[in-house]
């Protein structure tokens, strides 16, 4: 993997930063911007999101859900920076990674993650699908294809969220931070509309869920207003070692089609993704009210939170074991 250390030079015909006239590295909606002003703009945007939505409070124990990819390394770095900036204890910060067991994908990103956490002195816990559910994702998908219409992204998502919550809780975390970015969120908003998932839609936003629920550690998204392109640029300019990887199953998913459609739209009509987010946030308070009386039970198998007698993670595991 090639590590980049990005430089800036000065030919007269290149685009200039609207703030300082130095060479621009990206064109945003309000104008082109140089490396230094971009980094400042990006970091301030994340910190403002944290402050506006009160994503981090004093005395929190913070678990950052990390994969070793660009988004999670960025938010891991910026969470630590935020804590330092506000004189909050960084000893209450740790990273948690889930190894789904996807060959030629996950082991590469975990390599980058271990190096990153070592460099930035952030404790790291790694857990795996195989340890918890007796199957790696690759194995589970092979088995599921025989018997079920369950999609791999559905299985992966359910198991990952389960493990994040379980291990964050065991470690005493009061908050889980994820690296979901503006592109991710705009895609999910559209997916929920296309599938008429209004109840699910109500649980989205910079803070996941509509209410605090016993058994669930609240999940928050400080990168909520940052585009995928901005995150990538930030990692390049900071020199974070992030290998290019794409989940081998991602092309098969519904989300991939929505992502492609949205990127095509954005290239013709700049600002579309931001508008989707803005519209959604304007109606989120109305969507939230539909979830207020949900009853949370205890899973018969794992005693974790569930909306039926068994949680989805255990149900999926039972399906695999029993066929």
């Amino acid at each position, binding site marked *: 993997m090639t590590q980049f250390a990005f*430089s800036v*030079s000065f030919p007269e015909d290149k685009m200039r930063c609207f703030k300082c006239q130095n060479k621009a*590295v990206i064109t945003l909606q309000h104008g082109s911007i140089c490396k230094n002003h971009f980094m400042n703009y990006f970091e301030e945007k994340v910190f403002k999101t944290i402050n506006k939505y009160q994503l981090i409070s004093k005395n929190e124990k913070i678990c950052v859900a990390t994969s070793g*990819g660009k988004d999670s390394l960025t938010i891991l770095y910026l969470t630590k920076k935020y804590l330092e900036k506000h004189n909050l204890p960084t000893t209450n910060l740790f990273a948690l990674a889930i190894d789904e067991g996807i060959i030629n994908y996950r082991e590469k990103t975990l390599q980058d993650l271990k190096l990153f956490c070592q460099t930035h002195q952030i404790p790291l816990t790694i857990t795996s699908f195989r340890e918890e559910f007796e199957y790696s994702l690759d194995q589970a998908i092979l088995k599921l294809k025989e018997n079920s219409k369950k999609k791999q992204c559905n299985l992966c998502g359910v198991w990952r969220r389960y493990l994040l919550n379980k291990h964050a809780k065991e470690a005493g975390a009061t908050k889980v931070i994820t690296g979901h970015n503006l592109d991710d969120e705009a895609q999910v908003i559209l997916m929920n509309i296309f599938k008429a998932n209004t109840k699910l839609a109500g649980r989205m936003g910079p803070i996941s869920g509509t209410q605090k629920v016993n058994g669930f550690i609240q999940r928050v998204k400080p990168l909520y207003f940052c585009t995928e392109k901005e995150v990538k640029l930030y990692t390049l300019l900071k020199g974070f070692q992030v290998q290019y990887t794409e989940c081998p199953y991602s092309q098969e998913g519904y989300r991939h089609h929505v*992502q492609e459609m949205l*990127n095509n739209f954005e290239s013709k009509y700049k600002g579309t993704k931001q508008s989707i987010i803005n519209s959604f946030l304007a109606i989120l308070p109305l969507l939230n009210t539909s979830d207020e009386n949900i009853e949370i039970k205890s899973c018969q198998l794992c005693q974790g939170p569930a909306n039926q007698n068994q949680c989805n993670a255990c149900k999926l595991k039972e399906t695999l074991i029993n066929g």
Partner: protein
Amino acid sequence: MELKIFDERNSTATEIIFTKKTVKDLLLQLNINSETVLVTKNNEILTEDEELTHNDSICILSVISGG
């Protein structure tokens, strides 16, 4: 002009003939959506309006990653 292109998305290195001017023109020629990539030359980030020259070595980096 000739350009050397390294595309991170499929780890391919190719040489192409390019008759237009800018990064934006290049992405159009390669049928790549500018929303999905960052373009660099000699480890320098290029914006879409920047003009390319003969024998430039260009890297196309994907902004989309993960699952």
